């Protein structure tokens, strides 16, 4: 009996589901659950991590991310405006900056700010300031590119209409173009915040006091002190998701509202 095209597609899909389910089942059956629970999901160790994992580590991750984002967004906006400027040296400067900081691993930038700056200028910055600079300057490169795409996506007629009403270039940008560009790039911008949240784990490179630990460092220390497997890191991972998943949901909400 010949199958119709649609029937074939349906059966093909069911086969895919079945394979996926079989794979998951195999993994579940093959895993060494008692060891896994003891080493990675140990309830006693989980209990030990509280409340510091929230009051210190989660809080610091949020602070570092926020500091980085504030600088990244302001510098990124500036870079995006420079990149679309009619003045060539501005464009060159912005391009050079973006290529440099987008091309380097964030880890190297952290090292440069943490150890390079003191070497070069005998300057020891406060840890929070160093974090802000390192995270902010890396994310500025990405945010700058994202915003430039957004600015260019706003139809040119919007700019012309603003100028025809007598607005200056800067007034047209501030009141008309930038607000529309932000709406366009909101999903991409959320992505940047999420990446930034995870990049904040690089702060460990700077060497810091217990009160400055963020999630990853806190988890790693937890492994050393408890000597009991991966549980502290698993918990830290869960805490990252607690930050990033609501961010994604929030962005989708705002996006929906903006479209309406």
């Amino acid at each position, binding site marked *: 009996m010949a199958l119709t095209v649609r029937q074939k597609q349906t059966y093909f899909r069911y086969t895919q589901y079945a394979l996926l389910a079989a794979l998951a089942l195999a993994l579940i059956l093959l895993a060494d659950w008692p060891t896994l629970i003891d080493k990675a999901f140990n309830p006693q160790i989980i209990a030990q991590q509280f409340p510091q994992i929230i009051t210190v580590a989660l809080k610091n991750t949020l602070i570092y991310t926020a500091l980085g984002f504030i600088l990244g967004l302001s510098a990124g906006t500036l870079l995006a405006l420079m990149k679309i400027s009619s003045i060539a040296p501005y464009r060159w400067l912005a391009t050079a900056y973006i290529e440099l900081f987008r091309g380097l691993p964030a880890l190297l930038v952290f090292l440069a700010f943490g150890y390079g700056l003191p070497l070069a200028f005998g300057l020891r910055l406060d840890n929070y300031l160093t974090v802000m600079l390192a995270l902010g300057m890396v994310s500025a490169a990405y945010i700058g590119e994202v915003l430039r795409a957004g600015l260019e996506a706003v*139809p040119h*007629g*919007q700019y*012309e*209409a*603003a*100028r*025809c*009403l*007598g*607005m*200056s270039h800067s*007034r047209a940008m501030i*009141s*008309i173009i930038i*607000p*529309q560009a932000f*709406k366009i790039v909101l999903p991409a911008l959320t992505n940047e915040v999420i990446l930034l949240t995870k990049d904040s784990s690089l702060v460990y490179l700077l060497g810091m006091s217990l009160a400055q630990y963020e999630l990853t460092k806190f988890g790693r220390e937890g492994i050393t002190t408890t000597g009991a497997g991966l549980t502290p890191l698993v918990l830290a991972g869960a805490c990252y998701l607690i930050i990033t998943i609501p961010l994604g949901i929030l962005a989708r909400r705002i996006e929906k509202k903006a479209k309406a």
Partner: protein
Amino acid sequence: MTSTPAVTIKNLHKSYGSNPVLKGIDLTVDSGQVLCLIGPSGSGKSTLLRCINLLETPDSGSIQALGQEMTSPDIDLDAARRQMGMVFQHFNLFPHLTVLENCTLAQRKVLGRSAQEAQKIALDNLAKVGLADYAQRKPSQLSGGQAQRVAIARALSMNPSLMLFDEPTSALDPETVGDVLDIMRQLAAEGMTMILVTHEISFAQQVADRVVFMADGQIVEEGSAQQVIGNPQHERTKTFLSRLLHQVN
């Protein structure tokens, strides 16, 4: 009738790359006049209109508008543009603002009017185009004809002395064209100086004080509507008009 020129254009040239679009245009528009620019697409009429407020920079020639030398290097462009409103084919309303904010923003930020004053003027002009009830809507909630009427109200809220219309009805559904034309007719009757690029030949016939027919970057024929549309002298004009009329009928 007074005849101070509102716009004087002398020997205007403009090319895009090696492609000349305006080849020496001379044109005078008197205050209170309604001038219609007609012609086939690619004839340079939109470019000519956009040169008047310097949305396009001419290569050579001079433009005087409302007593200011637009082509002078010393021109305060923002100040000059404040006095001339522009209406675009695709409306170009600001989609992130309400209808009312579209009409008040420039009044406040450019003219420095108070929020209250700007709002009053905006609502007056929205009432004039029959859309006072739509003040709190977003542009995306308007039909094309309504959007274009808001765009006219937005331009009028700046109290311009000259209005430029760039194919204001070309992007509209046929049934909403009439509303927009009615408002333009009313503006003309109030004595507004208007320059418009249009394909609405019957509107030009009824409202225009002067009609200019352009082709290939040059003015082929100009005169009263009766002369240019009713009794065209040049072969190009005759061909263009007969094609346009056949399309309509």
